[in-house]
């Protein structure tokens, strides 16, 4: 697989699918500007599910230090891009 060549758009579209799956009934508009406070279901347990889903979707492993930084779609995309680079 050519994950290493994944573009920023591809990362965002994959994240959109992940968000839709994890927070399926929540009302929010997916965009790079979306922050944790905007999504009601993105609580501490929602965060754990999100991390597991991101790891599976991109086949990466997030460190315990990365995890605190995942507070918006833009920051998640940046961390994922760095892992894939």
């Amino acid at each position, binding site marked *: 697989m050519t994950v290493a060549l994944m573009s920023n758009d591809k990362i965002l579209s994959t994240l959109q699918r992940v968000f839709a799956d994890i927070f399926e009934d929540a009302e929010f508009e997916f965009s790079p500007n979306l922050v944790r406070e905007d999504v009601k279901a993105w609580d*501490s347990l929602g965060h*754990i599910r999100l991390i597991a889903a991101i790891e599976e979707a991109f086949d990466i492993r997030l460190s315990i230090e990365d995890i605190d930084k995942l507070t918006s779609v833009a920051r998640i995309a940046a961390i994922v891009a760095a892992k894939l680079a």
Partner: protein
Amino acid sequence: MAVNSFSIVDLPWLPRLSETFRAQVRAVEPDSASDWGVLLRQLATQHIGLTQAISLSQSLVRLSAKQPSKALTSFRLGLVSNATTDFLRPMLIATALRFGIALEIIAADFGQIMQEAVDPDSQLNRAKPDAVLLAIDHRGWPLRSGGSTWPPFDAATANADLSLICQSFRKHSGAICFVQTLAAPPELLFGSLDAATPGTLRSAIAAFNARLIEDTPRGGDVIVDIDWLAQSVGLDAWYDDRQWYLARTPFAQKALPLYADFICRIIAALRGKARKCLILDLDNTLWGGIIGDDGIDNIALSPGDPRGEAFRTIQSTAADLRRRGVVLAVCSKNDAATALEVFRTHPEMILKESDIAVFMANWDDKATNIERIASQLELGLDAMVLLDDNPAERAQVRQALPQVAVPELDEDPSSYARTLLAAGYFESTAFTREDLARAEQYQGNADRARVLAGSRNLDDFLHSLQMRMDCSPFNAVGRKRIAQLINKTNQFNVTTRRYTEQEVAEFESSAQHYTLQISVKDRFGDNGMISVVICTKRNVEWDIDTWLMSCRVLNRKVEEAVCNRIARDAKAAGAKRLLGTFAPTDRNSIVRELYSKLGFKLLDEQPTASRWVLDLESFTPFTVFFGE
């Protein structure tokens, strides 16, 4: 994404998740054409993750509030844990649907394990659940000794705590406990020496488990072998420390569906919903190749040939299952004579013709044949598992007979035995003498069905069976099986009162009670213990508290013979009347007319129970067909 291989955490025996899952769940309504319980059960019978589990568990709540489902059996599970149970709850509820169980979970507050157990007024003890799951891992037991000297770990206090917790729940709520073995984390202090050095975590966990395995069945509680489960997933994958630090999840999130399935199988087994019969396809399932095309000399079945060995493993697995009481049948699109010839003459066959209770080889569709097999064995379709390498056949059977379990298989026969066993269809919480004989008993059903077809009438048939009945009061030898029957029998059961093994033991020595355990033999085999009676003696009245019978001896006049026996013993003890209660449930309509059929008079009728009386003075024993 194309997936080429599965590991056990992916529940490879289940069909993959349908892309329209969400829409299908939303479409389930109380007024759907089928019972909504049936629909949710079908939806749960695929590889669901936490997201799907959440929507299924929400649907269950939404639909049960409108109208209860007749297709689901309820079970109330208490849950205590040293870890987060937020994910576990929806996953367990959704997974239980896969087994036809409407699960209600009463979860204790985080970490309140001992308080919940010992306080008679605790939330769990007041809720009186059917069972309490002790979802506690090594971090929740006091395994670590204080101080900074050797040893850091010891199991004695933890084992004592566990006993106290189990006994307290039993005493205050009547619930049995599901007790988890511990999986040792993959970190070693010395290396290989940890195993042999008392005081290491690995040794302390081994000691804890050894004691738990000995104590748990003796106390009437049930072991959940998480040690095995974690090892089969791989300890390195099972323990995700990062998730533990972040959210106190006790094992990797990825293993949640497997863990839930593992627990729900046990609940299903306790409710009598474990599968009982394995139906085997032949070509490319029991041997490599197609017998009708390749011929008996060219099928793969020999040791030394890698393909042959894979099929031999499937056969020896089926033979082992039969040995523990699973009934085997064959269902194959084949010419019967050609197929039978392999069983009769191929020198490398492990399964013999005599291992197969019903042999169905013809050109009819599989669903029809499976219905025939079920009816000959007098087993429900929900007791059946079909092992078949052909994806089209599997799909047809799943569609036509959703009650039948049909494990998914990949194209490699070397994975079949493992996949079949990993699915846990034949889960059991006890192993009794009756289980050992069960495969023969059902084979006997098929033989009896053939004899009945050749008899002129039922009485001739019953006479020709040469039945013998043995009745005796409860005793220690029968205790386990009596408790099993009391807790599993749903259909022929007048009051559906459940008693624990401990309570059964108390009946043995109670002067106020009359008890019977009844077993039946005939010329086709030993049916083992099939009926249980408990009467409360009140001077001149004996009140039937419990009367149940296994449905495999229906239509044999066993109930008439048992009635004769109770009446005889009651009369001999000076009783004048026999009282009976019928408490209707959604499963026991088969005994609705029992008391009236036996000549009891209706005393009183309420929606929850009717009361019946038999005058012993005027009672004439029924004609029955048993030697004693």
